[in-house]
């Protein structure tokens, strides 16, 4: 049975790598309960994992003052799943740091920038919003029906 929509789920987390598997589990269970196909479920789980790992790795060079500075907000709407990963740190990267293709990733041999590439590739929309002193918000959207789908007439 699919979950009723809309609903909002918000997770407040510490910036510790050990929290990643728990976040993945919550996201995967939520996406599965919405009746999303297995492939979309994996794509959403991985995109959220990458966004959260960026925050944990880059946003707080010094220990944060807040106990739970990483927020993952899931908005399950009737037409889309919107997920925001927010922090109040110094910046967790942006789209400019992403590799353009796997070929570039392999060629350059730095093995960086794949996480952002994955978010762009696996989600229908990705936006990084950065404000000085206010941290970074990564907004990702997965449409529950294809964004360009049109309703056919009988």
């Amino acid at each position: 049975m699919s979950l009723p929509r809309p609903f909002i789920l918000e997770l407040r987390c510490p910036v510790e790598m050990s929290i990643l598997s728990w976040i993945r589990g919550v996201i995967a269970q939520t996406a599965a309960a919405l009746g999303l196909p297995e492939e979309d479920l994996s794509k959403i789980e991985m995109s959220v994992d990458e966004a959260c790992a960026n925050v944990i790795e880059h946003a707080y060079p010094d220990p944060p003052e807040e106990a739970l500075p990483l927020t993952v907000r899931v908005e399950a709407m009737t037409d889309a799943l919107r997920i925001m990963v927010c922090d109040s740190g110094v910046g967790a990267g942006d789209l400019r740091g992403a590799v353009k293709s796997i070929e570039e990733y392999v060629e350059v041999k730095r093995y960086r920038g794949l996480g952002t590439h994955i978010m762009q590739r696996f989600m229908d929309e990705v936006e990084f919003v950065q404000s000085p002193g206010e941290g970074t918000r990564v907004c990702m959207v997965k449409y529950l029906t294809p964004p360009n789908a049109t309703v056919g007439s009988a």
Partner: protein
Amino acid sequence: MKTFEVDIRSLDSSPDVRVIALNGYLDAHTVADFDRCTDELIAAGTVKIILDLQGLSYISSAGIGALMGLSQRLKKDGGELVLLQPTQKVFKILDLLGFTRIFHLCDSEDEAEQILRS
């Protein structure tokens, strides 16, 4: 909770080939353990590795980067990395991103051994 375990053995038929079986998930949290394990093997002279992925439930970009780095280091020393039987979920991730064209993937240890001998 950290769910990541590594089991290392040598192939009976090719003792210079090391088989690393991964269990759990390879993500930004556990990748340091994986790097430490492979660093030790390479320092001890290993250049041919079969990575048994039958027990790996998830891989992130950090894990893929570690596999790419390992493959590059082994090739530099005249060796090779072969991935053995990834779980359906891990295979799908690698395939969607195009890494099944980059890595050697095998269905059996015999097949992996053949690639490492060639």
